[in-house]
């Protein structure tokens, strides 16, 4: 394998069978990732995919890259070690809503706040797939599953809001059934220097079929998807509606208003539509946008795209800088110095003859 050869999708397809259920949304994600990777200008051997346990977490087996299928919920920790040991690598974490937000929620938080420079794909199917259909932390309240015959009691978490509140420098959402959009987002994540968190709506056609149907359904998709573009106003439904900031009693709230057909970029009540700025240092607006269309806010469309993408030194950068500082201050350590430190004494041959 030499770098000279131009990489293609086929280079990232592993040998064996792909073993997800026929019709599973995971296939499309796999295909999109395999499509995007060869375009990034990164040598194939520099990619490493690290996953936990779940249907989603079988992902690395299907990629012809370095991969590690670890244990349930802990992929962020292994990925952090892989990346810290070799900052040259492009390290991707593949996780599910149970893996990354239930058992692994804490590692997700800490990986994000440390800005570990990992690319995180959270396959959100709002169910535990591999264990055959129990509610997950993203399942809607009241959901009836095998372990919640009377409806689940837990209030769901919104993965994107969770990530942004944890300090994500990059947060985005896409849909497995929209490969074009997904590939765009994957490229943006790859380009980001820092941890990039992507929530991917993914249909589990066996245990939670249709969870995201409204985002795909011909009749509803225009009003349910709010596609974000940097510098563009937050418009949807064929640019007939948009998002405005409503300071109702000083309570900042995003609401939908209709576009004034007569005045460009202004709502019927005369409000300006928000203009999307993922580079906004302040995370508040991204946080508010992440809640749009969430399970607890079904009236509004869900934001699809890059909600936030800001610069911040990565953990590895600072770690390396500290190492350089240490070397420059103390000199490259020698084992001899370490062992033979100052508090030594010597016993002579002839001491007690």
């Amino acid at each position: 394998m030499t770098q000279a050869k131009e990489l293609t999708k086929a280079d990232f397809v592993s040998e064996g069978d792909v073993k997800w259920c026929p019709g599973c949304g995971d296939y499309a994600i796999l295909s999109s990732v395999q499509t995007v990777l060869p375009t990034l200008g990164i040598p194939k051997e520099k990619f490493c995919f690290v996953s936990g346990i779940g249907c989603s977490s079988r992902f690395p087996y299907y990629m012809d890259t370095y991969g590690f299928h670890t244990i349930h919920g802990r992929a962020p920790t292994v990925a952090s070690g892989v990346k810290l040991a070799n900052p040259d690598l492009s390290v991707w974490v593949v996780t599910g809503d149970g893996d990354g937000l239930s058992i692994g929620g804490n590692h997700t938080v800490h990986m994000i706040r440390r800005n570990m420079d990992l690319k995180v794909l959270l396959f959100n199917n709002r169910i535990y797939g591999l264990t055959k259909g129990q509610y997950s932390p993203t399942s809607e309240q009241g959901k009836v599953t095998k372990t919640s015959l009377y409806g689940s009691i837990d209030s769901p978490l919104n993965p994107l809001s969770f990530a942004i509140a944890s300090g994500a420098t990059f947060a985005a959402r896409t849909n497995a059934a929209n490969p074009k959009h997904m590939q765009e987002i994957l490229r943006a994540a790859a380009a980001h220097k820092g941890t990039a968190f992507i929530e991917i709506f993914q249909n589990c056609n066996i245990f939670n079929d249709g969870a995201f149907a409204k985002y795909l359904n011909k009749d509803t998709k225009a009003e349910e998807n709010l596609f974000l573009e940097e510098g563009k106003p937050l418009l949807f439904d064929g640019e007939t509606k948009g998002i405005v900031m409503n300071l109702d009693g000083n309570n900042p709230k995003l609401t939908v208003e209709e576009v004034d057909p007569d005045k460009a970029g202004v709502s019927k009540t005369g409000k300006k539509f928000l203009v999307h700025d993922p580079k906004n240092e302040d995370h508040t607006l991204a946080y508010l946008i992440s809640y749009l269309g969430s399970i607890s806010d079904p009236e509004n469309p869900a934001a699809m795209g890059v909600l936030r993408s800001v610069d911040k030194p990565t953990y590895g950068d600072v770690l390396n800088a500290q190492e350089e500082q240490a070397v420059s201050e103390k000199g490259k350590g020698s084992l001899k110095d370490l062992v033979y430190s100052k508090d030594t004494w010597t016993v002579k041959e002839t001491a007690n003859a």
Partner: protein
Amino acid sequence: MATKDQDKEQLHSVTIRFCGDSGDGMQLTGTQFTNTSALFGNDISTYPNFPAEIRAPQGTLAGVSGFQIHFSSNNIHTAGDELDVLVAMNPAAFKTNIEDLKQNGILIVNEDAFTPNNLKKAGYIDDEDIFAPYESRIRVYKVPITKMTLTALEDFDMMAKAKERCKNMFALGLTYWIYSRPLDSTEEWLASKFGKKPEILEANIKALKAGYHFGNTIEAFQNTYEVPEAKIQPGTYRNITGNQAVAIGFVAASELAKRPLFIGSYPITPATDILQELSKYKNYGVKTFQAEDEIAGIGSAIGSAFSGHLAVTTTSGPGIALKSEFMNLAVITELPVVIADIQRGGPSTGLPTKTEQTDLLQVLYGRNGESPIPVVAAKSPSDCFEAAIEACRIAVEHMTPVVFLSDTQIAIGSEPWKLPDLSNLKEFEYDFHKDPETFAPYKRNELLARQWAVPGTPGCEHTIGGLEKEDITGKVNLSPEAHEHMTKVRAEKVQLIASKLPATEVLGESKGDLLFLGWGSTYGAIRTATEQLQAEGLKVSQVHLRHINPLPNDLEEIMRGFKQVVIPELNLGQLSMIIRSKFLIDAKGINQMNTKPLSVSDLMAKAKEFLGEL
């Protein structure tokens, strides 16, 4: 070096314990006595005893902090069983330590601290004469240490509190006088510590000398003593704790492996020091990562191993529970990572600052499935250096996780370390695999170590994981054949480590009546007992295991050369269980579960009982 002074009584060995309130500076006092004795040429061994609380309320039993030093003109291997001297700075310290003072031993108390209030805090009734019950069997010296320190510092322009804080130096000076020690190394140390605060420096030196002269002046102490220097192997020495030695051992292993060291850990007593120590060594290329918990600690270490670093994680018993699932992943993915378990008293949170050897079965068997992991144990503070290197060597050369066992006694105890000739350390024999033509992730060498190709290596892309697999290709395979084969391979790989071990050392004759078989921190006590029993003419020998899994191949034959095998452990018989089941040898245990290091006299007594039964 030392000139013999005929006025002084000559002693071979002395054990002193300084104890007082956490705020009384006893650890420091003990350390100074240690360094002075080491420089003087004695063999030494120390063992501090911390309270579980950071700084429990002053004067309470929970707040007592102690430091024990054993110094000798012989070679010694323990911090001593019973005390020759107990220095107790307050009633709480007196109460919790007095039982360890031997018949006719010396008790020095700071009589100024034995106020009604302090007596009450220690749980005494106000007007109790607390010394009375002891006076017939020990020598009690009530010294007004606080008052005399303050008097000595009368002329100093300092707050009374600051002056009082010098009273530990007074106590140190007094003991220096009793044991004819020079003051100079402590003076030097004070100068380096308080160089920028001349007032405090002077006050400390003054208090130190005041204590020394006090001993000289009053007639209370009939005798002074001398412990001549020991016949110590020539070489360069430093005093070192087990945790420091582990840290240095890991750095050395990193050099021998030619790979940077990565440590992913979460603080926990008594392992925290290792992480703290290693975070000083960034200029050695050491990467320390304080993770959000123990799971993340080992997870990051495993990731770094996959990426080709020398990977370690450090913890104590409760942390092992959390790491077990990942240890198992390291077993099935056959990645080199060293899990250092610095054992403490259990079960559960248990006795976080006390010593015990109760994690052995946990590290051997605390995982689902048949999941063999090599286990290496250190036997003393300085031995941690070599043991840590050995653990790393096995991990890298055999491609396997390895458990390194130490315990509180080793971790915070100290002894002189004869510094090794670094050129004698052997580089690790392994290679990253780089050739795509010959690569397969589970292809093995003659040790059954699989190929280690790290991400970034062109053409060797592969995925590993926790599902059962097929050998050589490493492809997921849950078939009967694959599982049967892989189970066998994993077991054999670990067993093969034994084929590379040197012959097991026997201390004493290789055949005889009784063999002490031990592991870990009991080494010193067992060795001392063995030597003393041998001196009494008994046919007793000692084997102390560095490797508990796999056991040395020659162990069975050695054991069968003795009429009785006795296994002393600070647990209810964990190594015993393994030995008995594996060899059907009726090994007897000496099992102590009382938070203390093994006692030599106990060992000797029990050994004689066993010998009597023969």
